[in-house]
Structures are given as C-alpha cells and as structure tokens.
C-alpha cells in the first residue's frame, strides 16, 4: 500500500460507490417490471457486472425473456433475440456473406447476424443443433465472429443470456460441456409465490405497462467490471475458494464421498474465476472492500452447478449438483 495517494483512495472509494449505485439503479428499474426473482435478478446483474454470460433455466412463462428485455432497456443496451429451433443454422446466428450490388458492382458483403448486439437473448438454446450451438462458442468467449476468414469484434459490452426448459427433453440437444463452461452462472428461475403472482397480475393486467427507463450505460457496466478487479481477497479465503473447486473433482483426496461417487468431472478453473469475480461483486454490494468466505459460498452454487458433470450413477439416481456442492462446502472450514 506504499505510494498511494489520498486521491487514489478516494477514487477507489468513489468507484466502489458508483458500482453499488449503478447496480442498485438497474435493480430498482428492473424491479418495476419483474416481480420477485430478487436473487435471480441480483445474480444476473452480478454476472453482467463481471462481463459474464448467464444460463437461465426455468419453465416457460416465468419472465425470463421479459427480464432480458427489461435489462436491455434499463442499461440502455442494444438487445437481440434468437429463438433457437432445430432448423436454425450457424449463419442465422452469426451472419453470412451475401452478394450485394454497390455502385454498380457486385461485391460480397457480410450480413451481420443477431449476435451483433449488446445483450443477446438465446431463447431455448438447447433446441438448436450442436452445430448451431457451437456457433456461439467464439462469440461468448472471444466476443468476436469469424466468417469467411474475417474476424469481426462484437460490440462491448456483450452478454448472452440463454434460456432452457428443464422439463421438455424431446427434440432438445443438451449443451456441450465446453459451451456450458462458458456461462458465468447458471440460474434456476423459480415459480413466483402467491403474493408475487398477485403483484404480477396487477402490474401487467392494466392498459399501460410500467415504463422502464435507461438508468445506466454500457460504459458504466464496463467500469463496474474494472472496479471489481481491484477488490482484495485474503489469502485464506482464496485458499478456501481453490479447495472448493478442487474438492469438486472425484480425484481429489479430500473430496466428499458424494463427489467421488456421483461426479465424473469437477468444476473447471473458469468456475474459480467466476466465483472470485462474483464474490467481489457481492462484497462491494455488502459495503465491504474485501471478499469474505461467505461471499464465495453464496455464489458457489450458481457458478459451479453447470460445471459439474455427473457420472452414470449420479444421472441414474437423479442426484442434484446443488446437493453435491453443498457437500463440498460442508468440508471446508
């Protein structure tokens, strides 16, 4: 901490305050339309602050699409949507080269696909074929598109919010592990309770829907990500985070019995990165300037549940990855 000036400290304090303020503004704006789902909204916003993609899982009609469009409006971001179907082609996602006439000359021109946006809603992502799903791989990780040898960067910020229906399995293609790993969080969208349903009906049953205003900009979202990286983490807490990831692997000596029995592959290093970033966000939101063990624990299920690959026994016995993660957390101090 040598060489620091009061300006540096004040700037950091201001950045932290801005982070919280921006976060709360967006949350408040989204809450105008999205009733309940507080945890889902918070996790989605944390993922966005961390520049991460989110996979939303829930039955139809829970407001997944509404959440995405609302977020787009609140953050003043360009929104795109792709309804994934089995006949969807990769070119329909990323775009394709077309023959166009320019000044009397016919030239090949790149027709941008719907991924060229800030906030992409990949609705029912598991209905597309693996080939089409894999078209999203580069866009999600590299945030760029390569067509006919040309690589075109996507606009920043860029987020993918995928949705999938956990009930219907006919005509679906489970996402490959590589693609699942690229999602920062996987969130379960719960069914609203009675009072929340009543509020939903009151808000959406009238002639006018609540108006959602833009309360943040893309730059502010990117700045949030920059702020996060500066939040310190104590070595012991970080050690626990690492142990958490390691103990999700059946090969680890200290892994709980459930992991050894039901898990084929544990969480990847991306899970550790995601947990650290998300924990930092939670620390700032809690008014702290450091990451606590509780922060890491709170984000562990969302960051790890889609990264654990169950074994045959696990699948056969219908084991939930959240239970396994709870077992892993129980082994730590």
């Amino acid at each position: 901490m040598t060489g620091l000036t009061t300006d540096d400290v004040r700037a950091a304090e201001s950045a932290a305050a801005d982070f919280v303020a921006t976060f709360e503004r967006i949350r408040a704006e989204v809450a105008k339309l999205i009733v309940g789902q507080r945890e889902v909204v918070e996790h989605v916003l944390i993922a966005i602050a961390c520049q991460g993609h989110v996979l939303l899982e829930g039955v139809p009609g829970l407001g997944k699409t509404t959440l995405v469009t609302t977020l787009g409006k609140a953050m003043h971001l360009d929104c795109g949507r792709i309804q994934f179907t089995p006949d969807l082609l990769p070119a329909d996602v990323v775009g394709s080269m077309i023959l166009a006439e320019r000044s009397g000359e016919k030239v090949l021109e790149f027709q941008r696909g719907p991924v060229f946006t800030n906030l992409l809603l990949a609705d029912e992502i598991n209905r597309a074929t693996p080939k089409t799903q894999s078209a999203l791989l580069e866009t999600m990780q590299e945030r760029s598109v390569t067509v006919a040898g040309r690589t075109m960067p996507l606009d920043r910020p860029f987020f993918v919010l995928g949705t999938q229906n956990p009930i219907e399995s006919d005509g679906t293609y489970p996402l490959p592990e590589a693609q699942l790993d690229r999602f920062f969080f996987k969130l379960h969208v719960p069914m609203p309770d009675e009072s929340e349903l009543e509020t939903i009906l009151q808000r959406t049953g009238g002639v006018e829907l609540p108006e959602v205003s833009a309360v943040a900009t893309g730059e502010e979202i990117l700045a949030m990500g920059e702020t996060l990286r500066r939040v310190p983490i104590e070595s012991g807490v970080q050690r626990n985070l690492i142990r958490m990831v390691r103990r999700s692997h059946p090969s680890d000596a200290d892994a709980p019995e459930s992991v050894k029995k039901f898990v084929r592959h544990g969480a990847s290093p991306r899970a550790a990165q995601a947990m650290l970033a998300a924990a930092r966000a939670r620390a700032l939101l809690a008014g702290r300037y450091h990451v606590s063990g509780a922060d890491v624990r709170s984000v562990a299920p969302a960051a790890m549940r889609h990264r654990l690959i169950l074994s045959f026994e696990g699948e056969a016995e219908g084991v939930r990855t959240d239970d396994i993660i709870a077992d892993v957390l129980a082994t730590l101090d």
Partner: protein
Amino acid sequence: MKTPMKTEPNAREVGSVEALIARTKHQLNRARAVRIALLACAVGGAAAAIGGGAFLLAGARVPVVLYVVVLVCSAAIAWAAWVIERVGDRAAAQFLDKSFGLDDGLTTSLDLHHTHAGGAFGALQVAWAARRAEGLEPTPLMPKPGRLLIAGAILLPTLAVSLGFAPESAAVVAERERFARTLVLSAELNKGIGEAIEDTIASADEEELAELEPNELRELADALEMSGEQADLLRQYAEMEHELAARAEALQAPRAEELMARAGEALSEGDETARLGRMLEEKRFDEAAKELEKFKPAPEVTAEDLARRREEAERLKKLTKRLADARRRMDAAQSAAGKPSRSASDRSANTDDAQTGRLSSRKGGTTSTNDDQGRPIEGEIREMEEAVEELERALAECEHGACEQGELNEASDKLKRARSAVNSMQGELRKLGAKQRARSKLSKLRSTLAQCQSTVAGQSQSPFAGGREAGQGSAKSQNAEVNRDDGRQLDLQGIQGQGPSELEVEEADSGSGVTTRGEAARNVDYQRQFESFVERPDVPDALKEGVREYLERIHRGPADAGSTDEEDGTR
C-alpha cells in the same frame, strides 16, 4: 497533482486493529493455557487414580514413582498441547471476525497489512476494518473452562493423592516378608547343602571318593541359586535330589550283590565258611573282605608244611566251589528268566561301550552301570576257581612225587596265584563296600535335600538349624511355671505322685486308656471349633445338621449308628 495520502490516520487505524488482535491473542492463549492445565490435571489425576487403584486392588501401596511419572507425562503432554494449540495473529483475527460478524474483515486487514497488497482498495479495507474494530472488547468472548472440568481437575488429583496414603494389604506385606524369608532361607539352605557335601567328602575314604566324584558334587552345590520364590527353590532342590538319586542308582551293583547274596547263602551251609556267608548275605562286604583273609593260603610251600598247605588249599577249594556254584546257579536262573548268560569274557567291549554311552548322557560322571557291576567279581571267582584247581594239582603232584625243589617251586607259584586271586576278590568286595558306603552318603545327602524342600514348603524346620552336634541337656527347668493354651497352669514339682500330671485317663467301652493332656486340650479345641461352626449364621442349616449328625454318630458308636440308619431307612 496527486497529494500524498495521510499516513497518520492509517497508522493509527492499523495500530488499533493490531492491538485488538494482539490483546485477543493474549487472552485466547491464556484461556487455552488454563484449559490445557485443567485438562492435564484432570487426565493426569484420573490416570494416577486408576493406576493407584490398580495397585491398591493388587494389595500394594501406590508407589511414589507412579505420581512422578504421571506428573512428568502430564506436564510434557500439556506443554506439547500448549505449543500446538497456541493461537497466532491470524487465528485471533478469525476469532474476532467470527465472534463479531466481521466477515473476515480483520483477517483480511491483517493479511493486507503483512503483504502490503491491495492497493487503494486495500487501504479502504484497512480503514473499514479499523472502523469496525473500534470499541470491540474480546474479554467477554473468551472461552471459560466448564465446571465439570474444574471439578475434575481438583477432585481427580486429590483422589489420586489420597490413594497414596492407603496402606498396603496384609497379604502383600506377608508376601514380601515371605519372599525375604525365603531368600534368606535359600542362602542358609544352599550354604548348608554345600557344607553337607563338604562334610560328606571329608568323611569319605579314598575308595568312596573314587565313587563319589567330589568335584562334581561341589559343582552341584555351587550351581544352587538364591531365590525368594518358593517354586524356584523347590525346583532346584528337587533337580539336585534327582541328580543325586541318579548317581546313587549308578553306584548300585545288583548283579554283583545278587551273586554275593547267593554266594553267601551257599557259604552259610559250610562250617568254615558260614561266618563269611552271613557277612555276604548281610552285605557287609568290608568285613567279608577281611574274613576272606583267613582263607588265603601261605605264599610259600616246603616239604615240611605240605600237608598244612593242602589243608589250606582244600579249605579254599571249598570256598571257591561254593562261590562258583553260586555263580553258575545265578547264570542258570537268569537263563531261565530269559536273560542270556554271559561269561566274563564275552561281556567286554560292546557292553562297556553301551554303559559308557549311557552314563555320558547323564552328566558324564560315573564309569559303570548297574548291569555290569557283577562282572569283575564273576571273573575273580573264575580266576579263583582256576587258581585253586592248579594249586591242588600242583600240591598233589608234589605229594605223590619226590617232592623235589622244582615241584615245590611250582606249587609255590600256584599258591601265589591263588593268594593273588583271593586278593583280587577282596579288592572287589572292598569296592562293593565302598560303593555301598558312597550310596549311603548320597542317600543321606538326598535326605537332606528332601528336608530342604520340606523346609522351603514350610513343613519342617531347616535341616541345618541348630548345631551339628547334639547339645548339652539339663534336667533343670528354666521356667517354674508354664502357661498352657487352655489356661491351666502346670507346676511340675518333679515329685512322683504329686502335683498335676501331663497324663489323663480316659474311659471307653473297651476299657480305660491314658492320654496326654495335650491331646485332651486338642480335643477341647476341636470341640470348640465345631461348636462355633454350627453356630455360624452364614452356614446353611442342612450343613449344620449334617455336621451335628456326624458328631452324634461318632459319640454313639457304630452300633447306635447302624440302628439310626435302619431307623432312617424305615422312615
């Protein structure tokens, strides 16, 4: 232009956090030290109490070394536990975080302070932690030892120490004393046995010494060990007795003795040889050897005493014949019993080897065995027989011939041979006598060892108690009055017909008898014991009834008892 950050507030903030952590660490360490000390007291006390209890149950006094060992072990374990469980700064910070819900704030602050990492956010974090740490007081949070632990730490050592004052049981004291007594007794007995062996050796003549093998006897005595254990002593004395028995057995010459007994029987029939025969029958071999001297002819013969020599030869011939007859009868008897009769000549090498081998297996001491002891005597009888025949022939030729000097010389040679044969026979008899005496001495030693075993078992006095010789007796009483167990006072005046007597007259159906007063007193004791037995409350009634009935039957006599049985049978 950036202004340098104010270091003063930060230093104070950091200082306050560090002071809080240091204070907490100190208090936590003190609390743990107290807990470990109490735990060590309780566990050490429990261990000492259990160990002491075990000693007391065994009847022994609790040894001080037990307390020392428990104390040292407890202190060492407590010290090790204290070193292992000592709380550091990080653990103290974690304790504060957990106790005050600071979400790892102080731990992170400490970490950032030590690593100088975190940048501006680190500075913010330290300030945040310092603000949160203000006014925190860890003292009320310090863990306090439970009442159970405190009680255990006080009561268990107290109990253990109090056990140390308990006396050892009478059985253990008695056992220890018995051990010491046995040890002293073993020394006394070993010394006594050694002296007895030395006495035996000293009292033995040369021939006996040749049989006794004194050095080996001394080795046996030297091999005796002192011991406080009765069983060990009994074992070693029994082993030595067994060894002596084996030696005595090896000295036996049953064949030779049987031959001599038969010879004695045969010789008893003759007038001249009757005395010698009795001696042989009674196994008085030394006397028999002397008696045999009478049958020895003179070594020289002249024309004048030829008749006298012939008489001597005749007498020797009769003796020899009876001896030879006895030998033949024994051979015949043994042949009839299935044992092949063996002449002296064919009983040589192979059997000697056999006996040597058998003996060498038994500590390699003696040089002959029972079965072969008779052979030299048989040979001597044969030799005597031959010598007498030749002598008789020589004397007859001399008498019938001209009795020239040449014939006389030859007769003299035969006389010498006959004398020599008698001498050899005497030697063999003396040897038998020596074996007999050696056997007797060994038997005496065996008897001493048997007495030693009896002494060790507490059944008799030491065989070496008192002097070796009889003491000086006195008719003068040392005590004018003697108190008896039954309370009666005896005052023996020594005047016939006056004063109390040691004798009592008891009347019975078959007549009157005399018993000593000691016997009468013993009977009174028995009676009292039976009475007290049948009155004991813990003895079952059926058993009491049985004892009572038994005594009644004794008093009634067999006839009455028979009638009682009959009555019982009719019931």
